[in-house]
């Protein structure tokens, strides 16, 4: 860690020749770029647009649920809306946003590399994302599916709605996911800077690496499964049709074999971000580097063997249910390890309550409750009551929104200076964080209670006794939406008018802060030589230098 950057008292410098304006500007240079940073930025923009679309669907759903009967739409539209909300949010945002967005930008820099292993494959991954999104959007515009994002057969194979384009869109998006994962694994293995042994790799990389393993192993199974549903829908081939000897529950097994590890694809990158944010904003080394690193691998591995906990009420044998229940408990242990280690990192740290840290606090709160409700669901007998009710909806939104989206926002604020060279207004950042966290609480805590009282999910109309809690949830959703819009507005403003950040406004000891902001195209002039773990704050004077300080502008 070079001293001159670590304690930069002078006016922050904006790196004039950076990846945004080199090798060229203009649409064509971005469309054919091989620079992982540009590809990462394009993914961030695309996934943010998807998030807005999915969020709009969510708002419409909550508006409809303001009254027990029809409010602003009919049942068919409602059924399509919750299906598309799920499809857009999961396949177009949750899975790609942090890995393909922040991962693409940061992974090579954190490893001291100039790019990912296969830059052309990386660009292909982005175009496959766009293609998959386009196909799915076509389906949405031409009727859209009404099956729920889980596409359970035989409903999905017999419904009249336009399921096939959405299935095909998800299939194509799967390839995008696989290629990204493949790229990251190879990059981590072969492009580390000299001196970077496996126990010096940033924890962000560890979690992204674990995510990538899941991506390449689980996604092909989903791809095949969705294809089978599409074939059966179009040609009645009968794989899941009991009339032809097929088993509809087999679909559930195939579907959840991917989709359960998929939820770990959604949470591991969030944990990746948090490991970095916790250290930077408490100026402290992580408590238990090995535990945090290996627990990521543990989640990835054990997560493959827990899918049956989605099938407790499906007529599955008690023996199978028991095995899946126990294994689900084990997965939760790895998360517990991380939660305790992150909290312990704060001990004797130097904590600055900036916006990324505020999102970490929200993340921690929601991960504990989201995770514990997961354990409760895994006891099987409790799941009998909660399955397919709003309790499950609240549980997974606590993790997906309360944890992953919080982490996404933490990442956005933490790395905003690195990606753009500018800062956002810290006051507004905290306002946004408070609104989002409060809004989130009021949206989803009532849903736990709704589930307890028996309200099933995917219900267009509901008995009147569920009315009050639904109104509370919608009120919360409005606050959450308002908070997110606030964030969007000041982020957009700061892109153009934010004050110059300098190379390391946070004084973080993460490796990515050793480059100027925004980074030059080649990331580094000379590859850094790594002699220690990142995020070591215990002694400035004796901190061994990583490499000569990179110059803000490059003579080439």
């Amino acid at each position, binding site marked *: 860690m070079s001293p001159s950057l670590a*304690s930069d008292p002078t006016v922050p410098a904006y790196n004039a020749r950076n990846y945004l304006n080199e090798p060229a500007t203009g649409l064509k240079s971005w469309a054919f770029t091989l620079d992982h940073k540009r590809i990462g930025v394009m993914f961030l923009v695309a996934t943010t647009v998807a998030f807005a679309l999915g969020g709009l669907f969510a708002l419409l759903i909550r508006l409809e649920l303001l009254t027990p*009967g*029809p409010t602003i739409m009919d*049942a*068919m539209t409602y*059924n399509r809306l919750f299906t598309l909300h799920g499809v857009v949010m999961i396949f177009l945002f949750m899975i790609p946003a942090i890995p393909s967005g922040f991962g693409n930008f940061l992974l090579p820099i954190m490893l001291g590399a100039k790019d990912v292993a296969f830059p052309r494959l990386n660009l292909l991954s982005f175009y496959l994302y766009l293609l998959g999104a386009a196909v799915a959007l076509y389906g949405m515009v031409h009727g859209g599916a009404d099956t*729920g994002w889980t596409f*359970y057969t*035989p*409903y999905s194979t*017999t419904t009249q709605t336009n399921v096939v384009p959405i299935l095909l869109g998800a299939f194509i998006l799967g390839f995008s996911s696989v290629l990204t994962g493949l790229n990251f694994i190879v990059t981590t293995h072969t492009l580390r800077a000299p001196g970077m042994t496996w126990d010096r790799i940033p924890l962000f990389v560890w979690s992204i690496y674990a995510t990538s393993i899941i991506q390449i192993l689980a996604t092909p199974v989903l791809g095949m499964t969705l294809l089978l549903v599409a074939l059966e829908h179009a040609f009645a081939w009968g794989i899941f049709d*009991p009339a032809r000897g097929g088993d*509809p529950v087999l679909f559930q097994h195939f579907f959840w074999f991917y989709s359960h590890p998929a939820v770990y694809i959604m949470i591991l990158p969030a944990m990746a971000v948090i490991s970095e944010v916790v250290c930077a904003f*408490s100026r*402290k*080394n992580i*408590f238990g580097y090995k535990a945090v690193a290996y627990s990521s691998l543990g989640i990835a591995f054990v997560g493959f063997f827990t899918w049956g906990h989605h099938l407790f*009420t499906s*007529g599955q044998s008690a023996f199978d*249910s*028991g095995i899946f*229940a*126990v294994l689900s*408990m084990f997965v*939760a*242990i790895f998360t*517990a390890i991380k*939660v305790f*280690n992150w909290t*312990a990192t*704060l*001990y004797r*740290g*130097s*904590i600055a309550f900036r916006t990324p840290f505020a999102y970490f606090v929200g993340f*921690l*709160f929601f991960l*504990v*409750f989201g995770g*514990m409700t997961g*354990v*409760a669901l895994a*006891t*099987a*007998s*409790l799941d*009998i*009551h909660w*399955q*397919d009710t709003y309790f499950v909806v609240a549980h997974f939104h606590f993790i997906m929104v309360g944890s992953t989206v919080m982490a996404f926002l933490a990442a956005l604020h933490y790395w905003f200076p690195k990606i753009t060279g500018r800062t956002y207004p810290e006051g507004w950042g905290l306002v946004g964080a408070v609104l989002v966290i409060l809004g989130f609480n009021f949206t989803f805590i009532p849903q736990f*209670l709704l589930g307890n009282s*028996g309200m099933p999910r995917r*219900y267009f*109309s509901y*008995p*009147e006794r569920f009315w009050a*809690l639904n109104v509370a949830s919608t009120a919360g959703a409005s606050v959450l939406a308002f908070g997110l819009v606030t964030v969007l507005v000041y982020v957009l403003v700061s892109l153009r008018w934010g004050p110059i950040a300098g190379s390391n406004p946070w*004084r973080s000891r993460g490796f990515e802060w050793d480059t100027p902001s925004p980074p030059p195209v080649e990331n580094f002039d000379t590859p850094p030589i790594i002699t220690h773990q990142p995020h070591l704050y*215990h*002694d400035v004077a004796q901190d061994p230098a990583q490499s000569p300080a990179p110059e803000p502008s490059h003579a080439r």
Partner: protein
Amino acid sequence: MNELIRGLLFLPEQLSEHARAVDQLHFFIITTTMVAAAGVFATAIYFFVRYRRRSETDVTPHVTPTAIHEVLFIGVPLFFFLLWFAIGFPLYVNLQSPPPGAMDVYVQGKKWMWKFAYPGGPNSLDVLRVPAGRPVRLLITSRDVIHSFFAPALRLKQDALPGRYTQTWFTADRPGTYEIFCAEFCGIGHSAMLGRLVVMPADEFDAWLAEQRRGLAQAQDAAPGPGEAVLSASNLVAEGQRVAAAQGCLKCHSVDGSRHIGPTWVDLYLRREKLKGGEIVVVDEAYLTKSMMDPGAQLVDGYQNVMPTFQGKLSPPEAAAIVEYIKSLKTPAVRSGPSEGPAYESIPRK
């Protein structure tokens, strides 16, 4: 205490021993969760304050865990998780092990209604009557897509699968009327697929069952041929109304002109309907009968193709009776316009 926590958590009443046991586990877990969460957050907040940043170049000590830390971090949660599994899993197994001698009820989920049948009769639509204090085994299947039989008061749920039977069982403590929901998305009528669990005192239930079966026996004794009902012209309309209700037609077709999943039957006879392909058809006896047997063939424009076929389910006299019933549904002012588009309204339930 139990009631207090149950109320705080918005849980429904506990109608069975199983429900009580499940809630006990629930309370145990949530209490532990709250305590643990409070511990973590209290620690975190303490750290936020005690170790707040004094200067941007603060130096912090390099803290590494010792073995005991990770042992505790792993061991304590693992202990609780396995404890909860040990308590919860036997409860789950218990639900899959109905006691011998439990009374069987066949449950058939179908878009969008529940049909219940007792071996030896009777059948009923949407209302499940059971005796209090006696074990009841449900044998559940589906006619079409996956549904899920959910009785919150019993903390009971089991998927209804096409092509096979699943089973579950319960013993309801006390009389009353309780909710039954469908808990697996099954299409446009999913949230309307509501049922009622009517728990009767055991002796009242026995009496009801006996009377129902007497009525059935009488009907069977009176019938001259196998399965063929004898209907005279005068009671054909009433018979048609009875069959339409029993077969569930009225779940999708209203008889008061209101919009629903299928076209309303009021003034349907001899109405000019526009079909999906654009052609106009007059709704006569032939069209009505064909609609019952092959509903998708001449679909009215603006409606979804969701009506099941009743081929083999309705005998010819029964189909004729329904046609007569439809013919009888006329308002004084004859409307000749086509059906308006489908609209769905929830069936209000308290």
